[in-house]
C-alpha cells in the first residue's frame, strides 16, 4: 500500500496516495475542476489547459493533471488569477467551435456547455470567420466524427494508441487547422468508448444520435450480460424505451471501458416486437392465450426444463426450490464460445454471463449441468413430455441455438420462456411465455472472477413478475 499524504485544495483538507495524480485527487474528493483532456484511463496530455492551479510557494500556475500529490501541498483553483485563466481558455476553446448545440447529441452532457454556463463570458467577441472542417464523417464501428466540434483534447487518439493499440486516429495539421484524421476506419472492438470519452460532440454514436435528448433519460446502474466478464454499466432509459449502454468505472472488473458487443445488450428490452403476453403457436402465428389453456395441455405430462446461463443466482435458487421433490428433469444450455478466450482488454470468449452461478445452483440441487445431461434430456424426449426452454437473453450464434430448438419438437408440448424478441425458429414451440429481461429484475450474477455482480431493476417494458421460478411452480399443478 502506498502511504497517503494530506494536502489542501481551496482550503479543503484532502487525502490522497503519495505521488498520485493531483487532479484525480481533487476529483476523488468531490472538488470540481474543469478539465477536458485528462482522463484517468489514459496518459496525461496536458493540452486543454483548463485544470490550471496555483500552489503556495510556486510562482507559476501549472496544470494539475501533470502534477503529483505531496505532503502538505497547498493548492488553489479558485484564485482570481486561475479563474481569469480558465475563463480565457474556455473562450479560446469556443473561438472556432460551431454553435451546433440545438442539433448536437452531446448537448446536456457536454463539457463545453457545462463550463460555459459556469465560467463563460456570455457576450461573444467573435465576429470573425470560424475555421471550417469536415462535419459528418462516418468513421466506422457506429462512430460519427464532426471535426469542427472537436477541441483536440486528443483523448480519442490516446485511446486508440494506448488502450486498443490499433492507432486508427491521429491529429493532422497544425494550429487551429489541426484536426482528427482517420488513418483507417475504426476496426477495434471498443470504438464506442471513443464516444464516451469525447468531452464534446465531435464523436457521437450512430446508434444513439438523434434518438433522445439526454436530459430525458435516466440511468440504471447494472451489469453487462454480454459475456462472463460482467462489466459495470449504466443503461439510459425513459418510458419510451432504453437507448444506450455506457460503462461505469469499476476498478476490479472493467476499469473505464466496455466492449462494443456490450453496447447492444439493451436492444431487446424495449423492442416493439418483444413478446408481451403468453402466446400460442397457431399455424406459425403467435396468438395471445390464457394460462389456463396452457396448464390444461400440461396435465399428465412429465415436465423437463432447459435453463439458460443468464439467470440470476436468486432465480436459480428459487427455481430449484420450486421443483424440489418433483420428478422434473433439468439441464443447462450454455452458449458456445465466440472468438478468442480473452482479447487482452475485456472481452471474453465465454459468453455465459452467469455460468458459475448456474453450475453452483445445479450442484447444490443435485442436478447435472453437463452437455451430456443436456443431450440426454433432448434425445429422450417423448410424447409424454412437456419441455420448457429458457431462451438465452443474448444469443451470438443463432445457428447453434437452432440445432437445440429443432429437437424440441419431439416433446408433446414445447414451451419457450423468452425475455426478448421471438426468433424465427421459435415456431418449433407450441407456446411462448414472456419472462423479465435483465433490466427488469434485481439480482446477482457471478462473473469469471467468481465475483458477485449486481443486476438492478430499471423501468419495465414487458413481463416483470412471472420469472422462471413461477413456471417451475407448474410442476405441482
Amino acid at each position, binding site marked *: 500500500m502506498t502511504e497517503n499524504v494530506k494536502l489542501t485544495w481551496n482550503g479543503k483538507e484532502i487525502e490522497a496516495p503519495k505521488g498520485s495524480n493531483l487532479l484525480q485527487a481533487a476529483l476523488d474528493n468531490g472538488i470540481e475542476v474543469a478539465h477536458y483532456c485528462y482522463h484517468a484511463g489514459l496518459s496525461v496530455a*496536458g*493540452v486543454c489547459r483548463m485544470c490550471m492551479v496555483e500552489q503556495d510557494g510556486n510562482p507559476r500556475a501549472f496544470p494539475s493533471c501533470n502534477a503529483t500529490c505531496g505532503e502538505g501541498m497547498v493548492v488553489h483553483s479558485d484564485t482570481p488569477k486561475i479563474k481569469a485563466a480558465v475563463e*480565457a*481558455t474556455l473562450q479560446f476553446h469556443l473561438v472556432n467551435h460551431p454553435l451546433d448545440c440545438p442539433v448536437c447529441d452531446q448537448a446536456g452532457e457536454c463539457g463545453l456547455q457545462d463550463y460555459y454556463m459556469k465560467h463563460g463570458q456570455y457576450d461573444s*467577441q467573435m465576429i470573425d470567420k470560424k475555421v471550417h472542417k469536415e462535419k459528418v464523417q462516418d468513421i466506422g464501428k457506429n462512430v460519427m466524427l464532426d471535426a469542427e466540434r472537436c477541441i483536440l483534447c486528443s483523448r480519442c487518439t490516446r485511446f486508440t494508441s494506448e488502450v486498443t493499440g490499433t492507432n486508427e486516429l491521429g491529429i493532422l495539421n*497544425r*494550429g487551429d487547422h*489541426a484536426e482528427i484524421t482517420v488513418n483507417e476506419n475504426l476496426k477495434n472492438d471498443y470504438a464506442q468508448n471513443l464516444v464516451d470519452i469525447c468531452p464534446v460532440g465531435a464523436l457521437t454514436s450512430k446508434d444513439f444520435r438523434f434518438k433522445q435528448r439526454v436530459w430525458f433519460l435516466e440511468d440504471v446502474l447494472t451489469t453487462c450480460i454480454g459475456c462472463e466478464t460482467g462489466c459495470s454499466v449504466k443503461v439510459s432509459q425513459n418510458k419510451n424505451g432504453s437507448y444506450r449502454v455506457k460503462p461505469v468505472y469499476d476498478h476490479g472488473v472493467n476499469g473505464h471501458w466496455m466492449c462494443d458487443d456490450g453496447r447492444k445488450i439493451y436492444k431487446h428490452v424495449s423492442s416493439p416486437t418483444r413478446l408481451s403476453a403468453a402466446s400460442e403457436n397457431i399455424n406459425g402465428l403467435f396468438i395471445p392465450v390464457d394460462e389456463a389453456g396452457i396448464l390444461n395441455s400440461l396435465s399428465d405430462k412429465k415436465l423437463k426444463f432447459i435453463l439458460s446461463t443468464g439467470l440470476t443466482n436468486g432465480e436459480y435458487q428459487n427455481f430449484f426450490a420450486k421443483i424440489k421433490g418433483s420428478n422434473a428433469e433439468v439441464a443447462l444450455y450454455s452458449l458456445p464460445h465466440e472468438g478468442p478466450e480473452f482479447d487482452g482488454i475485456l472481452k471474453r470468449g465465454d459468453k455465459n454471463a452467469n455460468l458459475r452461478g448456474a453450475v453452483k445452483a445445479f450442484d447444490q440441487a443435485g442436478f447435472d449441468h453437463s452437455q451430456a445431461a443436456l443431450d440426454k434430456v433432448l434425445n429422450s424426449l417423448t410424447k409424454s413430455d412437456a419441455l420448457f426452454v429458457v431462451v438465452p437473453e443474448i444469443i451470438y450464434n443463432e445457428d447453434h441455438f437452432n440445432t437445440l430448438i429443432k429437437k424440441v419438437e419431439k416433446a408433446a408440448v414445447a414451451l419457450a420462456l423468452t425475455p426478448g424478441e421471438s426468433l424465427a425458429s421459435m415456431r418449433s414451440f407450441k407456446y411462448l411465455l414472456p419472462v423479465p429481461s435483465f433490466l427488469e429484475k434485481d439480482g446477482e450474477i457471478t462473473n469469471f472472477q467468481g465475483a458477485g455482480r449486481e443486476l438492478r431493476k430499471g423501468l419495465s417494458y414487458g413481463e416483470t413478475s412471472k420469472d422462471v421460478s413461477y413456471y417451475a411452480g407448474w410442476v405441482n399443478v
Partner: protein
Amino acid sequence: MKDSANYKDYALLSYHHIPGVHNLDVFERAGGYETMKACLEKDPEAIKEEVKLSGLRGRGGAGFATGVKWGFFTKDRNAKKYLLCNADESEPGTFKDRYLVEKNPHILIEGMIISAWALATQKGYIYIRGEFQQQAVILERAIKEAYAKGYLGKNILGKGFDFDLYVHRGAGAYICGEETGMISSLEGKKGQPKLKPPFPAIKGYRGLPTMVNNVESLAAIPWIMRFGALAYKQWGTDKSPGTKLFSISGDVNRPGVIEVPLSTSLKEIIEVHCGGMRDGNNLKAVIPGGSSAPVLNAEDSYNVRMDYEDVAAKGSMLGSGAIIVIDDTRNMGDILKWTLEFYHHESCGQCTPCREGTGWLESVFKRRESGKAHKSDIDLLDKTAASMRGQTICALADAAAMPTQGMIKVFREELEAYVSLSGKK
C-alpha cells in the same frame, strides 16, 4: 572590404576569415581540435566546472546558464544518454547558427566532442532546420572528415571513449526549435513539445537523459576550454559574460552576422558594425531578440546595451540575438500582421490557448480586410494576448503574445490608425 570590427579575434568567429576553414586540415592548421585533444586528457568534472565558471548562457534564446544545465545531467558515465545540438534556427530574424556552421562546421563538432566527453554521452545529433540543406551537407561532410581522423566513432584517440554524431534534418517547423518539440520530431513523432516535468536532462530522447544545447553555446566551448573561463569573462557583464553572435537585419546599410562582447551598445552595433541606417533614414524601432521579443522605440534602442539584463530592463529580451532594425518608412501594423501570421502558421496546435489564440489574434488584427475593424480591436488584441501568456506547454503562445503586447504598448496609436483603415484591401 568588410569592417575590421567583424574580424576581431573573438571566440566564435575567430576562424571565419581563414579561407577553406570548413576543411578539417585547414581548421587543424589554424589550431582546431587542439583543445579537444587536450580536453580528453582532463577530468570531465573539471570541464563541467570550467564551463559553469565561464557563466556561458544558453544562446538559443532563453539564456539559461549552460553549466547549470549540465549540472542537472546524470553523472553516471555508463548510462545511455544523448547530446542534442539545436540547429533548428527558425526565429524570424535569426541566422547566426547558419552562418557559424556553413563557414566553420568543425568548431561545432569540436565543441560537441568536448561536451560529449564531459557529459559522457555516447551519441549526438545535430538537429538542423529543414531549410538549411546546404548547411546540412557541409556538416555531414565535416563529420565524415572527423570520423576519418578518428575524432568521432569508437575509442576516440585511444581514450576508450565512443561518440557517434549524426545530422538530422527537420522538416521546417518553428516549433521543433523548442527542445522537447525537437525531441518528438527526432523520435519520428509529430513535432510537438512535451509536458515538463520531466525535463529532457532527466527523460528526453527515447525516454533517456538528453542534453540539448544551441549551436552557438556548443561552439563556444572550445574557446572557453582553451583560454579559460576567466578569459571568457573579460567580455560582457557579470551576468552576461562572453561574446555573442548577433544577426542584424532590416534597415541598416550592412546587415549580417557579427560577434561582439555582450553589453555592446545597440547604437554601436547599428552605427559602427552595420554602417548606420539605410539611406540615412531615421530609426523608428528595433526588435532586439527575434520576432518574439517586444519592440523597443528609437530612444530605448539607442540607449540599450545588448546584454540579458539591460534588454530585459527595457522591457524586451535578448533572445537569440536577432536584431531587426526598423526605420521610419515602415508601418508597424504591417510588421505586427506578418508576425501574427507567422505564429498562427507555426503553432503546433496542441494547447488550446495557443492553437486558438494565435489564429484569433491574426483574425482580429485583420478585421480591416473585411471592413469589420474598430479601434477597440486593439484592446481586445491586448487582452487576448495577455490571456495566452504562461498558459501553455511551451513558450510559443508567449512568443506570439509578447510582441503583440509590446507593439501595442509602444505604437498603440499607429496600430489603431492601421486597423481603422477600413475597406477591403
